[in-house]
Structures are given as C-alpha cells and as structure tokens.
C-alpha cells in the first residue's frame, strides 16, 4: 500500500519514535548510571562520566550474591524446564494420540484449571508443601512447578502431534517397536518445533517467576536471581548504593536479553498463538 507521504506521517513517525524512546530510555539510563560512581551520580545525574566504573558490576556480583543466585536459578529453571517439557510432551502424546478409558474425564479436569485463579490455591498449596517438607527447598519448588498440567502447552503440542500421519506410528509398531520406542524415536523428534516453542515459554515463565521463590525460599543462600534482587532493593533504603543496584538489575536482565536475541521470532510467533486461541 504505497501512498504519498504527508505532514500527518510526520506525526505518526514521531509517535512511533516516542514509544521507542519510552522503552529504550529507562533501560539506557539505568545502563549508563550503572557505570558511574555514587558521588558523581548524587551530584548531577546528567553529568558525563569521567571514567567508566565497570567495577560496579563486580561489586554487585559479590554484594548481592549474584553468582550463587544465578547457580540457584540455573538449577531451578534448568531442571524444571527439562523435566516439565518432557512431561508435557509425553502427556500431550498420551492425551491426544492414544484413546483410553477416562481420557475425556482427564481432559475435563485439566480444563477446569482455566477457571481457577491461582491465588486461591496459594495458601493450601503452602500448607501442603510444608507437610511434605518441601518448603525452603529449590527441589521442592522444582517439583511444584514441573509436576502439573498446562492447558495451553498441551493444546499447542497436541495440535502439533495430531498433524503427524498415523502411519508413522503404525509402521513403527509393525517393525516391532514398543510404544516407548515409538514415542522416543518417532513422535519426539518430529515434534521438536512444537517442543522448542513450549520450552522457550517455560523458560521465560520460570526465569520470571517471582512469587513462587519469594514465598517458598527463606534462606538467602537459596534465593533465585529475582528474589535476591528484591532483597537487594529492600536494603537500598539503608545503603543508598545506587550504582551497584543499577549494575545488579542490568545483570538480572542479561538472560532475558540473550533469550530474546536468539529466539525472537519464535517468542513473538508463539505469544500470539495463545491469544488467538483464547
């Protein structure tokens, strides 16, 4: 749709730039301030830096225990991601491609989750986890977050698997393969594109999960990156160590940025998939 550019286009263009600035400016501002020193930041926030204090990043890393928090996050996100994605995949297969007694009932029960607001379950869930001795434990959190069903992921993968021809499995069975082998050697590899989408969204959900770790982890040595940044910010009122805080927030952003850079297209396509299906 090529048309003549008019004066109103300038207005539209300015609008697009304005929103871009609204997104970029706070991020760049924090990045810029993270390279300054506290005295010069307090004196004049707009001043150009005399030198770049990359030391702030090292200080943040040590002061907020980011190294340890990153390891905790890696353990929590990594194990939940692998376990959760595998379980979702095998469940999608069992629930869409194998017919068995009680399948409809299972689907109905899973669909019920769409009507349940998560907040009502928080308290009984906490009591249950306490009785199982799974509180204040990253492993407990992993079990809580990877053992479960998710309607959106099941539908996404189920839809994907339904498009695979039935003959694939049949020829596998004819060759004497067990159902386990059919799943691992035929269905799993062919579903990889769907599985990757699910895994990316699980990663974002787990890495960005704040409430779970915040409720369940009480030892500082077990904090994930989100909770340790929250704790660091709570300390800010006593320390006023701004530049280190800025550096810490920049570090916490790095995994998200890397994910977005590598899987940008996947993320943007997958995100709209969920919305259209409602």
């Amino acid at each position, binding site marked *: 749709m090529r048309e003549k550019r008019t004066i109103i286009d300038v207005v539209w263009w300015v609008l697009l730039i304005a929103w871009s600035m609204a997104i970029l400016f706070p991020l760049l501002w924090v990045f810029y301030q993270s390279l300054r020193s506290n005295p010069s930041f307090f004196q004049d926030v707009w001043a150009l830096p005399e030198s770049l204090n990359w030391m702030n990043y090292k200080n943040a890393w040590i002061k907020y225990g980011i190294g340890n928090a990153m390891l905790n996050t890696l353990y929590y996100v990594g194990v939940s991601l692998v376990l959760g994605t595998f379980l979702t995949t095998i469940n999608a297969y069992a629930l869409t491609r194998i017919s068995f007694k009680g399948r409809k009932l299972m689907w109905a029960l899973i669909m019920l989750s769409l009507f349940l607001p998560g907040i009502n379950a928080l*308290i*009984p869930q906490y009591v249950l986890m306490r009785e199982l001795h799974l509180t204040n434990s990253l492993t407990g959190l992993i079990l809580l977050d990877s053992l479960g069903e998710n309607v959106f992921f099941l539908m996404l993968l189920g839809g994907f698997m339904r498009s695979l021809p039935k003959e694939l499995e049949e020829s596998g069975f004819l060759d004497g393969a067990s159902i386990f082998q059919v799943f691992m050697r035929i269905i799993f590899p062919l579903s990889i594109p769907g599985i990757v989408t699910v895994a990316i969204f699980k990663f974002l959900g787990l890495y960005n999960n704040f409430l779970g770790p915040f409720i369940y982890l009480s030892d500082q040595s077990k904090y994930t990156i989100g909770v340790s940044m929250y704790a660091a910010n709570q300390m800010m009122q006593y320390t006023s160590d701004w530049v280190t805080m800025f550096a810490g927030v920049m570090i916490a952003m790095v995994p998200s940025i890397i994910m977005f850079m590598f899987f940008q297209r996947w993320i943007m396509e997958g995100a709209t998939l969920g919305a259209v299906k409602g």
Partner: protein
Amino acid sequence: MNRLSRAKRSPASGLWKDGLKNAKMQRNLFLLLALTPAFGGYLLFTLYPNMLSVYYSLLNWNGISEPEFVGLSNFVTLFQDKYVWRALLNNLFYMATVPIAVISISLLLGYLLANKGYKGTSFFKVLFFFPNVLSTIVIALLWTFIYDGSFGLLNDFLRLLGVPIGNFYWLGEARTALAAIVPPYVWGGVGLYVIIFMNAMTTIPKSLYESAILEGARHMTILFRITIPLIMPIVRISALFLILGTLKGFEKQLILTNGGPAGATDVVGLYIFNLAFGTENHNYGYASAVGMLLFVILVTAKLLMDKYMPDRSVEY
C-alpha cells in the same frame, strides 16, 4: 527387518493373541508412566489445594495453631472489612485504566506498523515487544528508579524542564501512588498486543482498504470504520485477558509499594497475600475467604463480559 519377518511367520493364533495382550499391557504401562507424574502433580498441587481453600475459608487459623471451625463468620467479617472494599476499589481503578490504555496504544501502534509501511517497521516490532520478555521484578525495579524522589529519572526530567518538583516521591504519596502503578503495567504489556493486533490486521483483505482510499477516506476513518470492527473478536479477547489480569494481578504492587502508602495501592490479591504471607499476623482462614470473594468476582466478570461484549465476528 529380522523382527518383521519373524512376526509375519508366526501363524499360531495363540502367539498373536499374546502379542496383542502384550501390546495392550505395554500401552497401559506407558499411559501409567506418562500420565502419573504430571496428572498426579496437577491433582495434588492444583485441584486439591483449590478445593481445600473452600474449607479453609471456614476456619480461624493462623497456620500454626490448631485450626478452629468458625462457619461463615469470616464472610461476615469480610463484608464489614473496609480494607477489602478499598482494595476492590483500587482493582476497579486498574481495571478501568490499564486495559483501555494498553488496547488503545496497541491498536494505534499496530495500525501504523501494519499499514503505513514505514522504514524500520520490523525494528519497531521487536523493540516494542522487548519489555514483554523482562521479568516482573526487573520492570518493577526499573520503575522504582524512575519514580524515586531524589534521584529518579522522572524528577530529573521535570527539573531539566524547569518544573519545581523538589523531591517528590511518586510512589510515596497517596495521591499519586495509585496512578503511578498504571505506567509500569502499560509499559510491560503493550508490545504483545501490538503484535497480536498487527497479525490480525494483516489478514484483512487489501481490497477493502483500497476502495476506502479511492473514496477519499482518511486514516482515522479507516482505522475506526474498517480495521477495528474487523478485528473486534481479537480486541474483545484481549480486553478480557487484560481485565481478568488486572483483577488477579498484584506482583507489581507488591514490589513497588507493597500496597502503601497507607493502603493507597492495595489490591485484593495483595491483601490476600499479605494476610497469608505478610509480615503481620497471619490468618489463613480469613485470607481464603477473601480469596473466595475474588473467585466469585472473576467468574462474574467473565460471564458479564461474555454477555455484554458479544462475539460480533464480521464476515468479509
């Protein structure tokens, strides 16, 4: 190959039956192993706690002492608790502001990107989406930096423009704190809807626009008369998501203000959370009762919207 030929050569019907039985057993074993961990976890960690919360709402229990059954008295307290209604009013405020802001900004930006063919469209698309991948904690902390009274970005800007703002703490003053939480929600949410609306807009046949342009329609007319009506089903679902989201959501309030100052930004979700996990006395029973109220409100909101925002899909 070897296996295949063996299977074909076994004529004995007993063996065949055995094989069938085996296959069935194998299938059942597979189903058991495949479904138990995830579905069991779902029953244990999702369905069971949700049902249990109904029972909890009838208790007086701080989580440690012996629970005491008190019947409906939590619900009686609930209707007299002015903090619940204050929180609910704040929810209504966010429900009225956040979805409207997000949808109107996304519609406009989406329309410009989908139809104007400006240079850098794909760059804008990616940039606009970026805040959606950031974690709540990062977004919330970013906005505490923006709103800080002494060194915040917003006040720096205002000072630069010569506004005598002093050290005004946007999140610390009751009259600004409530509204100050809207921008972080909008900032973090718009990108997703820009993409959703853009995708919907590109499915509209070009011929519809062309004839409108030939007849001299302006962009605003096209946007409101053609584009928005045609993508209305998607706008509707988006509105539903956003409204239910603002009713349920409380993480940003938790991190930015924890409901303060003096409850000015408290929302129902946060009220429940603090009753159960906050720093003051815990009351699991009462918190669950407020949770029931929120559940009823959510279901009502959904039903009302289904009724009064009918799915007017347009054929073309």
